[in-house]
């Protein structure tokens, strides 16, 4: 009896404590803990999303990915290789110091220094010099014209004095954003509180609490149990239908900024034949993969260009699912089943391929399993190899794979998905795809300032890629967010939460 009483007291105390602690904060589910909250070296999606609230960049990207003023009030482009940015006056960091041009220079100079090990360093390597003209003016000089630069300048600006004075941005971030760090319990939660001195003069009414739950299913369950108010991609497709049907929750699906694709290694002796690549592509049932395995969150892809991009053209198309077409394409490439064993052969050799992906993403494994089944059904003896990301990516990077299923994220500019991947000198061209015309088009797209010229170049290149198929793009990744009834927000395809508020 005493025991029951004690339990009642404890439970009542617990209820009180819960309601007090979380009256203000909006609780979001996160799939991983942030490794570091220094924008220059951040690596994971949680860090992106937290850093976006803690820091401001020179520009910010609006919903259609157009750069708009942020810490830079305005900018100009007097020569193709020169950009001038005029900074906002009176911006204060969370530690009370003022933002000036020196902080901007410091941010990018340190990113370019290999010692910092910045993940996005390669995005900024076309920069020749970056200098402070005066306290509020920054000049960037490029080695060669580089149109995508502006899209990457939403990188958070860090306070140089703080860092040089020994401040540790990784665990004690100091930015100019609307939120500042309240506490960070590693592996568990990151709590942000409103920053009263933001340059916009606006102070949000509530803070944020990013709660780490690694398992997708468990995270969805926590959301349903009311322990989280917002969850967003990555989600398990099998949870989505149920959550959509629950009228306690609101949700939004939108085109994301990523693709899921098959990397078909053109340097492989078998797959060097474009006709074979074409035939194999016709065995990928995109409709079923997207509709059944991804439960309709993603979109069937038609080319390397994203529908959300200004360069998109629906008339550029890759082959679509067509087993009969594939069969004649195989025959045209010399592959027929002469010995009646159910497997296509040529010169006495069976058509055998290895499909690979990484073990971290169950949906990719399922998609690959389905593709393997379709290939097997249609005379290709395909086997599957799955290893964890470090091992898998090490093999792909040196072009050891045959057909690999993986993805690209954060494609804010077509250059980001094409130059390094398909240019014969590209750093991410693992299969060694080489096409002089594509090279020229990608150079044009990168160097030209005129948007129409860029569009024409990328569309022409995308057409050739859809034809020669070093990549077969399976899906445009969707972004989905669920939020409970008392939250309002304007969804953003990158999962940024600046707009989230309590009703």
């Amino acid at each position, binding site marked *: 009896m005493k025991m029951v009483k004690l339990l009642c007291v404890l439970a009542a105390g617990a209820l009180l404590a819960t309601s007090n602690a979380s009256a203000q904060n909006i609780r979001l589910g996160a799939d991983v803990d942030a490794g570091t909250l220094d924008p220059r070296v951040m690596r994971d999606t949680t860090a992106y999303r937290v850093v976006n609230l803690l820091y401001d960049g020179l520009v910010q990207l609006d919903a259609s990915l157009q750069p708009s003023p942020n810490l830079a009030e305005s900018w100009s482009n007097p020569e193709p290789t020169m950009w001038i940015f005029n900074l906002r006056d009176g911006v204060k960091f969370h530690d009370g110091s003022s933002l000036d041009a020196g902080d901007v220079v410091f941010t990018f100079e340190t990113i370019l220094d290999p010692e910092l090990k910045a993940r996005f360093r390669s995005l900024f390597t076309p920069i020749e010099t970056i200098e402070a003209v005066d306290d509020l003016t920054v000049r960037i000089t490029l080695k060669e014209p580089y149109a995508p630069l502006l899209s990457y300048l939403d990188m958070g600006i860090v306070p140089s004095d703080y860092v040089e004075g020994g401040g540790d941005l990784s665990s004690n971030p100091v930015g100019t954003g609307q939120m500042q760090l309240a506490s960070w319990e590693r592996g568990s939660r990151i709590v942000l509180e409103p920053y009263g001195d933001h340059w916009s003069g606006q102070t949000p009414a509530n803070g944020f609490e990013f709660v780490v739950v690694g398992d997708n299913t468990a995270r969805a369950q926590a959301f349903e149990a009311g322990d989280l108010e917002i969850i967003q991609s990555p989600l398990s497709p099998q949870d989505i*239908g149920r959550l959509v049907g629950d009228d306690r929750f609101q949700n939004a699906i939108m085109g994301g900024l990523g693709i899921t694709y098959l990397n078909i290694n053109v340097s492989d002796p078998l797959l060097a034949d474009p006709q074979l690549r074409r035939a194999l592509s016709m065995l990928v049932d995109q409709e079923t993969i997207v509709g059944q395995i991804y439960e309709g969150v993603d979109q069937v892809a038609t080319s390397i260009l994203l529908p959300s991009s200004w360069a998109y053209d629906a008339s550029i198309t890759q082959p679509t699912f067509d087993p009969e077409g594939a069969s004649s394409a195989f025959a045209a490439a010399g592959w027929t089943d002469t010995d009646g064993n159910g497997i296509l052969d040529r010169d006495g050799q069976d058509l055998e391929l290895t499909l690979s992906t990484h073990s971290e993403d169950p949906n990719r494994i399922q998609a690959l399993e389905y593709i393997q089944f379709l290939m097997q059904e249609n005379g290709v003896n395909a086997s599957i190899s799955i290893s964890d990301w470090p091992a898998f990516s090490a093999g792909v990077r040196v072009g050891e794979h045959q057909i690999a299923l993986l993805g690209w994220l954060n494609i804010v500019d077509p250059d980001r998905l094409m130059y390094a991947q398909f240019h014969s000198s590209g750093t991410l061209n693992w299969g060694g795809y080489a096409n002089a015309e594509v090279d020229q088009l990608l150079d044009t797209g990168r160097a030209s300032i005129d948007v129409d010229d860029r569009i024409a170049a990328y569309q022409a290149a995308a057409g050739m890629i859809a034809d020669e198929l070093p990549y077969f793009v399976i899906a445009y990744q969707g972004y989905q967010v669920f939020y409970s009834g008392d939250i309002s927000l304007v969804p953003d395809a990158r999962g940024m939460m600046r707009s989230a508020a309590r009703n």
Partner: protein
Amino acid sequence: MFSWRGNLSLAAGGTIIATIVLFVLFGPLVSGYEFDQMDMRNRLQLPSAIHWLGTDNFGRDLWTRMAVGARVSMVIAVSSVAIAVVVGVTVGLVSGYFGGWVDLAIMRVVDIFLGIPPIVLALAIVAALGPGVVNLTLSLAAVFWTEYARVVRSVTLSHREADYVAAAVALGASKARILFIEILPNVVGPVIVLATLGIGTAIIAESGLSFLGFGVEPPTPTWGWTLAYGTRYLRAAPWLSTVAGLAIMITVLGFNLFGDGLRDYLDPRGVARRYRRLSST
């Protein structure tokens, strides 16, 4: 001391194991489906007359996949324990019989392996070797062998000075003969008991590794993989995880009961259990 409990355990465990063997042998034949035949229009179907246990997320017949999966899971469990037994028994015999610095060195190696948490060790080894049935088996064996080494060593120690060993030495028997002909029979009982129980542990360990993403490669089915996947469909298709989970539970139960029953016959003095007490002091 042959108790009614022991006999009951043996009978119940034996029945369960026999049922699984029958299921492995005839399960795929009677279903009329291939384990890897997909049918995306009929995915996640409830159990019915057409699909006795329903279908999985690719519309594959769950009954067939469970039957084939039983075979794969058993192969992994039995062979990982078998490897662990061979390595552990050899190491334990050598360590216990020769004593001195050989024993000291071997037991420090055992301590090192015991000091690394089992699941971390298994994970790291699977990550190093890559996934697949063979590598999964090896990684489990790497975790299990220490147990046998310790039991066998302690039994060997207690027999080393026995009269019959001294007699064999006096008669000029070779070291190999003494180890494998004279001493080995004494450890067979406890080792068989431990191994039977170990098979259950291996089945559970395989499911845990599958849950963390380090299982076999598709489309090869295992019970652990089906359970790990099934938990993701806990709400939409609860029968997936229930069928796989119950199958694992009942099988492990079968091996545990069988092992307990065997104990009465093969290890009446409880060596397999007591070794732990010896080693902790």
